[in-house]
Every structure is written in structure tokens, then in C-alpha cells.
């Protein structure tokens, strides 16, 4: 469904990678590995359509990625996209709304429950700790079962062991239901997947 052909990316005039071809089918998990600065974030942003590739293209269901693709994709980057002034549940509501997801009150609470932060639902995000903030951002995963493709940039950083288990369980469930996950991570978190692959950036 998602495939890249001869993808190349440049930053500041330097090739980060080139001639990258990956293809991901329903139920597939792709781990992007590599040292600091090897281009993992750049690759994910290119897949999401945020960064223009220097060469090659990204295709979704055979078409170049465009407006339709954005309906079927969820991208969570380094930045948590959590607004300090809004409460945790308001934040989740807005980010789901903007992705055209269902935002019934009860679903929101279930999603927060799922990440173990339902206790903080009405706390303004300003007061969250680093890890709680990350959890608040990841709570969207629990609402996005219907979104086929998940692109997650270091979802496990700043999380404690309990949260890591919760998030990897969410990913595993998504894969089992025929979803696709692309993730970068420096930690080796086990995720149950029928079709798991890894690519190593720059050797």
C-alpha cells in the first residue's frame, strides 16, 4: 500500500539517503533504525508529505501521496503538539477533530484511560511532566484504529516502562487488525507483528 521508489532526501545540500525503496503491506511493521543524525526523522517526514524528496516519490495505494492520503495517515513527530493552555482532554479532542476522528466524550476518556492518564484529563497541559505530555500526544493512537497508516517518530522516548508496554500493545493491536506502522526508536521494544521489517539508515 505504501511504497517509495528511488527515494532520496537532502538536508543542507547533503544527501542523507538515496535510492531508498520500501514497500509496506497491510499488517506490516517497519522499524527505521540508525544512529543519531542518520536521517530517520527526515524519512518519516518525507513519508508524511511534509518534506519534499530530492528525488524519487512516495506512493500510497499506487498514487502519489496527496489530499486523500492525509485521511488515511497519522503522523506523530518529535513535537507533542499539546497546547499548554488546554486541558489534556481538550487537547485530545482537538487533535482528533482535526483528523476527522470520532470524538464522543466517552471515547476520549477511554483513550486517556488506555494511556493511563485519565486522572489528568482536566489538568491544563502546562503542568504535565515530560512523559505525561508524551502520553497525552500518544493517546490519539487509541482513537485512530480506523486510520490505516501510523508514522511514529520515537514514540517511546520519555516514557516509563508501563507506558511503553501500553503503546506497544496499541501498535500490536493495530497491526493485527490490518493496519500499518512505521516507527523509529533507539530502544528495542518488542511488538507482536506478523510482518515486521527493519531498515537501517546509512549502513
Amino acid at each position: 500500500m505504501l511504497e517509495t521508489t528511488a527515494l532520496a532526501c537532502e538536508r543542507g545540500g547533503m544527501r542523507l539517503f538515496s535510492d531508498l525503496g520500501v514497500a509496506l503491506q497491510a499488517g506490516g511493521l517497519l522499524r527505521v533504525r540508525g544512529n543519531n543524525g542518520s536521517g530517520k526523522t527526515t524519512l518519516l517526514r518525507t513519508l508524511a508529505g511534509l518534506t519534499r524528496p530530492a528525488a524519487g516519490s512516495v506512493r500510497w495505494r499506487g498514487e502519489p501521496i496527496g489530499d486523500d492520503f492525509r485521511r488515511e495517515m497519522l503522523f506523530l513527530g518529535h513535537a507533542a503538539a499539546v497546547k499548554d493552555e488546554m486541558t489534556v482532554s481538550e487537547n485530545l479532542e482537538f487533535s482528533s477533530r482535526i483528523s476527522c476522528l470520532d470524538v464522543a466524550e466517552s471515547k476520549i476518556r477511554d483513550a486517556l484511560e488506555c494511556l493511563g492518564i485519565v486522572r489528568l484529563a482536566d489538568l491544563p497541559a502546562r503542568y504535565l511532566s515530560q512523559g505525561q505530555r508524551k502520553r497525552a500526544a500518544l493517546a490519539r493512537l487509541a482513537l485512530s484504529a480506523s486510520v490505516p497508516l501510523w508514522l511514529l517518530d520515537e514514540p517511546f522516548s520519555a516514557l516509563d516502562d508501563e507506558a511503553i508496554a501500553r503503546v506497544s500493545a496499541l501498535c500490536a493491536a493495530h497491526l493485527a487488525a490490518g493496519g500499518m506502522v512505521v516507527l523509529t526508536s533507539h530502544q528495542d521494544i518488542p511488538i507482536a507483528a506478523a510482518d515486521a521489517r527493519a531498515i537501517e539508515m546509512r549502513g
Partner: protein
Amino acid sequence: MLQAYAFIVRRELRLALRRKGDVLNVLVFFIVVASLFPLGVGPEPGQLRAMAAGVVWIAALLAAVLSLPRLFAADHADGTLEQMLVSPQPLLVIVLSKASAHWLLTGLPLALTAPLIGLQYDLPTDALGVLLASLLIGTPVLSLLGSAGAALTLGVHGGGALLGLLVLPLFVPVLVFGAGAVTSTLIGINPSAHLSLLGAFLAVSSLIGPWAACAALRVALD
């Protein structure tokens, strides 16, 4: 799409209410600037009346320029803007709703306060009405073109001053026609020519501004 427009506007308004006083600040800034002038320039009533419209308009321009850097910066810094770009919502809708919210939070309050300042400067009633009308037509231009400027200077350090440099010249026609409408009323000329020019300018900028803002946002987040 209309739905998306509505809920983004609602969110912006709610955020503004949370950041208590945000609206109030711009307003008070506007009033302070307008009140500084007589201090700097000297208090002769005739002279003051002649410059009232210009002063109010300049204060409005500066208040707008001061409030513009925030239009996208906060959303950019915390990643919300990135999320908006990868969301299924058309970028144009997002830009339009942010510009609308900006107008509701700055332009509209400014326009509604302006007659009070006009009173301070001893403007006659018909001139007050024209002042209000000119601001109601002109301030949306500030939000529309301003959103383009804000998007262009996104992530640029020292963006505030650069933004001022980029948009203030574009606001010059608004200032000239807006203040001109009031001044012409003062000397007994019908202001409708000035006001309709303002309207034309609004039409042009509502085409150009959001387009430029969309393009600039994509560049800023590349």
C-alpha cells in the same frame, strides 16, 4: 469544511480566553499608543482633531503588527501546525479560520473602541461613524495580509521586526484610504469613494493573503 472552519475558530477563541487578557492587551496597547500622541505632539485641539483619524489608524496598524507574530508561532513551536498540515483539512480552511479568529480578537475590538478615542480627540459624530466604518472594512485586510506576513516570517529569528517591515508597507494603502475617509468627512467631502477603495483592497487581499499564507506555511515546515 465549514464545520472544520467553525471548530478551529472556536478553538482559537477559547485559547485566547484562556490566555487571559490577550485580547485586552492588544486593546489597551491600542489605547495607550493613541493616548501617547498628544503627549509627544502637543495639545492644540485643532491640530489634534486633524490628526485624530491618522493616529487611530496608525495605532490600529501597530497593534495588529504587534499581535501578528503570535498568529502561527505558538502552533509552530509546539507542533500543532505540523499536525494541521498533515491533517485531512484543507490548509486554506485552516489559514482562513485562523485569520478570522485573529480579526475577531483584534480587529473587531479595535474598531469598536476607536470611536471612543475619536471622542477624546473631539471628532464630530459623522466622522466617528466613518471612522468606525473604515476600521470595520480595513481591519480584515490587516488580518488577511498579516497572516501571509506571519507565515513568511515563521521560524525566522527576529521575526517580529521583520514581519513589521514586510506588512507595514502593504498596509499603507489601508492607512491612507482609511484615514482619508475620515479626514474628507471633516472637510465636508463624501467619504464613500475612499471607503469603496478600501472595500476593493479588502477584496484583493482576501484573494492574495490566504493563498500566500498557505504557500508560506508549506515552505516554513518543509
